């Protein structure tokens, strides 16, 4: 009898479990807590399972659809692993996405409008992809490690982060841009805040690029293998990525790895550009554990190793560049509390960079003739971030706390070919410490049904010092005062307004005020070689705060299948930090500058982008950008500013086939810096590229053939240091298999 009762009990329990596979969940606005109607519940990028009803509710079979993507107009998409007991899923409003653009990579289909960029060809590298975004350019010194610049501002005037983490370059000559540490197969999206209006989060008010990496997902096991080969530079790459999770979905692991190697590339007219080879290995692993409470913990690690990187524009090449980047992030489950935590993150990273000129003809060069100059640099950074939302006196706002500390070192040994001359050693940076802590707030205020205002503010405390007595004494000797610890409170703020005029037109504008303390090289760098003007730079610990005011106006028109966006901006700098001639070195061979506040400067310009669905599976995309940048004190253009440039892409997509024709072009650049730099004029160019992609085996296998610079045009961009030309005609074949 006991056994019978037990069997019946088990049957009932099982039936209850089966019935419980149907789950109903509400989708709501994170800010207002109001239900979101017509939100799309997807099983994958495009397959919509259901939509939410007037109460924001949807019901799905948990046994069939445990991992979902939820999208809704005006909200950031959300990937979620459904679990029994889950009642509400909150979506974050994304009404200001025109300021924080979403760039989708990895060849995924997504929003086909002016808000999203797609890396439509999986074989396109990060550098090329960035270089073709309107308002973004790259500074090039060879075939590797292009340094991104947003609206002509790079390095110290923009904030380049990985998952929000600060990673400082180790190379004082800027040969190791942070973008090189995230491969496209590990990139989830790029967040580009051109105006810097995301002050609360970026803490600075300067243009920000955030490389958001792929995270482990509670999803069925998947695996991707891809390989590419390009001629004539013998570029070959192999990459792997995979994701798996346990049956409960609580534990998930994602890994990715890539190896790439290239020989010297050929520019147009079959001219081989010597010393443009490189080799690189990148590994990434990410683990995610989701607690029953819906809190989750993530741990991620990136290792990047690059070897034998040729820099034809520079005096030397990078022999080895190593980066180790780790983070642990705790994601809090949504709550209705007045004070909420969203994420807590701690991270650490170390970057080391070796370079030398042992492979160069140092005896016959003009600069630093007759000596080898091996250099080493390293940075170590620790940081923590915490953010959440709060409601105070019926006012809801987001808050962000950010803190990091970094230690930088760099030296250069000079070994003369003349054995009678002793070796010489320079400490470019010695025990230079940066500490930074910031607190930011973001407020959204609904002024009317179709006007929304956003106000952000940030206060930041930053210190810079050197703990090396001899390094500090150099600045004491140069400026007559011991530098000690340089500390500043820095304020930034922004105000943005979005006016949804009607169903098609929207207008937005923002005003951003930013204060910037010089970075560790501007304050404590010593004999930092600037390859753009050929001067050696000394830091200045007594630099005043550089201030800027940025105004942005954007008009966007969107209909089904068509959209265009037009942006104008104007940025005014005060106390602009730049180099001025230093003390006479008594030499014509070595020229020195010191950083100083040189006065005012201005950068103004605009970007245009249109996206048109022409029917017949054909889409047309146009991008255009222009910058006018002027040093008002010297009355000359700022250096390294791209000219009017753009590209036009015709995209034909039918069934398993995709064909893309792309025209990249740039006007001539005659506005050049001749006082603060030694620029020359750059001619106009236009190149034509074709790509054909076909999917096989139900889409599991993808083949791509790309033919770039078909006319084999010989050209260089204005932001190419040393006028190193771009690649000539090249053919690339890629295969990608996934299951």
């Amino acid at each position: 009898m006991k056994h019978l009762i037990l069997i019946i009990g088990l049957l009932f329990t099982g039936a209850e479990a089966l019935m419980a596979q149907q789950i109903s969940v509400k989708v709501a606005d994170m800010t207002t807590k109001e239900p979101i109607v017509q939100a799309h519940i997807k099983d994958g990028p495009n397959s919509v399972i259901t939509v939410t009803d007037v109460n924001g509710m949807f019901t799905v079979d948990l046994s069939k659809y445990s991992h979902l993507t939820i999208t809704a107009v005006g909200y950031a998409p959300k990937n979620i692993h459904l679990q029994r007991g889950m009642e509400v899923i909150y979506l974050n409003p994304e009404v200001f996405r025109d300021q924080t653009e979403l760039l989708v990579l990895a060849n995924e289909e997504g929003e086909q409008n002016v808000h999203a960029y797609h890396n439509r060809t999986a074989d396109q590298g990060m550098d090329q992809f960035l270089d073709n975004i309107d308002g973004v350019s790259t500074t090039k010194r060879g075939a590797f490690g292009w340094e991104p610049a947003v609206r002509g501002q790079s390095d110290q005037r923009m904030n380049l982060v990985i998952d929000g983490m600060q990673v400082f370059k180790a190379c004082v000559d800027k040969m190791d841009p942070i973008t090189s540490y995230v491969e496209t197969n590990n990139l989830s999206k790029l967040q580009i805040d051109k105006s810097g209006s995301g002050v609360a989060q970026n803490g600075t008010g300067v243009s920000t690029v955030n490389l958001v990496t792929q995270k482990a997902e509670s999803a069925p096991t998947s695996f991707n293998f891809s390989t590419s080969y390009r001629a004539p530079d013998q570029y070959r790459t192999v990459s792997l990525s995979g994701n798996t999770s346990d049956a409960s979905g609580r534990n998930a692991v994602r890994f990715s790895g890539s190896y790439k190697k290239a020989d010297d590339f050929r520019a147009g007219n079959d001219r081989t550009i010597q010393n443009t080879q490189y080799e690189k290995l990148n590994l990434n692993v990410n683990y995610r554990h989701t607690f029953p409470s819906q809190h989750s913990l993530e741990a991620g690690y990136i290792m990047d190793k690059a070897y034998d990187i040729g820099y034809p524009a520079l005096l030397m090449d990078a022999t080895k560049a190593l980066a180790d980047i780790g983070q642990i992030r705790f994601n809090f489950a949504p709550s209705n509390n007045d004070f909420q935590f969203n994420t807590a993150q701690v991270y650490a990273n170390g970057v080391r960079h070796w370079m030398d000129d042992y492979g160069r003809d140092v005896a016959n060069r003009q600069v630093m003739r007759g000596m080898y100059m091996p250099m080493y640099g390293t940075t170590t950074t620790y940081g923590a971030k915490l953010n959440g939302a709060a409601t105070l006196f019926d006012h809801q706002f987001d808050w962000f706390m950010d803190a990091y500390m970094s230690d930088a070192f760099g030296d250069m040994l000079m070994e003369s070919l003349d054995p009678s001359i002793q070796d010489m050693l320079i400490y470019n940076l010695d025990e230079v410490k940066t500490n930074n802590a910031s607190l930011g707030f973001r407020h959204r205020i609904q002024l009317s049904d179709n006007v929304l205002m956003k106000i952000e503010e940030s206060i930041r405390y930053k210190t810079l010092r050197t703990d090396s007595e001899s390094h500090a004494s150099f600045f004491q000797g140069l400026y007559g005062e011991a530098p000690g610890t340089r500390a500043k409170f820095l304020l930034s703020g922004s105000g943005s307004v979005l006016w949804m005029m009607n169903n098609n037109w929207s207008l937005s504008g923002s005003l951003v005020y930013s204060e910037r303390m010089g970075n560790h090289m501007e304050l404590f760098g010593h004999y930092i070689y600037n390859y753009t003007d050929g001067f050696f730079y000394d830091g200045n610990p007594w630099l005043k705060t550089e201030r800027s005011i940025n105004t942005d106006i954007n008009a966007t028109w969107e209909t089904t299948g068509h959209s265009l966006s037009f942006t104008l901006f104007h940025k005014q700098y005060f106390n602009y930090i730049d180099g001025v001639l230093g003390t006479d070195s008594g030499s014509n061979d070595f020229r020195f500058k010191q950083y100083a506040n040189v006065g005012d400067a201005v950068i103004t310009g605009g970007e245009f982008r249109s996206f048109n669905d022409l029917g017949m599976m054909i889409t047309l995309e146009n991008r255009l950008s222009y910058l006018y940048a002027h040093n008002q004190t010297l009355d000359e253009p700022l250096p390294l500013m791209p000219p009017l440039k753009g590209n036009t892409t015709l995209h034909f997509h039918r069934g398993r086939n995709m064909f893309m024709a792309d025209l990249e072009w740039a006007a001539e650049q005659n506005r050049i810096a001749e006082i603060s730099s030694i620029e020359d004029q750059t001619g106009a160019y236009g190149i034509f590229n074709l790509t054909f992609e076909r999917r096989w085996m139900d889409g599991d296998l993808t083949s791509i053939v790309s033919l770039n610079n078909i006319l084999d045009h010989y050209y260089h961009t204005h932001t190419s240091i040393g006028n190193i030309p771009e690649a000539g005609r090249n053919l690339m074949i890629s295969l990608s298999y996934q299951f």
Partner: protein
Amino acid sequence: MNIQSMLGRLMAVTALLVFAVSCDSSDNNDPELDLIPINSVTVDGYTVSLEATNELEIGANQLFWKIKQGDDTITPQSFTISPIMDMATMSHSTPFDQPETDAIDDSYLSNLAVFIMPSGDMGSWTINFQFTTQSGSDISGEMPINVNSSWKIMNTQDGNGKKYFVTWFEPQRPMSGNNDLTFLVHTRETMMNFPAVSDAEMIVYPYMGMGGGTGHSTPFTPPVATGNGFYEGDINYSMSGLWTTTVELVVENDTLPEMVFEYSVIAK
């Protein structure tokens, strides 16, 4: 807050203050001399010892003297020295001060001596000393010393053949970064008298040759006379390696032939 709680907090604060003050007492330690023995001689039961911070070399040297009777250090009524270079056919002295009680450690007498040539085949150095004990006994003796070569002293002369000795006083160990730059200038009136020169103008120029005819200077402040033959400025070495510093003396509007100090600057 009740009284007990307040008293507890006061005691805690007091304890912290006492701890902080006691920790700070380490800053009041007297600096100590770090000396090496040079030589010692015993005369009439008194042992006269010479010590210095480094082996003696041409240029400026700080000499530290100690006189002992048995194990007891004694303080004489007076103590005088006279360095002599014996060159067989002639002898001469060198610029020097008479010893006085050392400011750091009063068990020593100390003085500055600028040796203008090294010991060797050309001749040998001896320091004659004489002191009077507290009981009135006069003791005298001589102490042979060895003086090594160095780059820290150069000489030039005017149109009348009057010699000027320029001594590199500091930095003793030139290092990357900012350094005090101090020279001493003496002239030779007689073979036994080398008075300090404090009314000259000094022109200096640091330079680093990098091969192939290239090179560069570095920021510096020209030394100016501060008395007793000292000329003080500073020099900010931009990098380690082999440097030269050219020195010209302008004496009574007469620019004397330049002297070139060549030396290594260490990284740190």
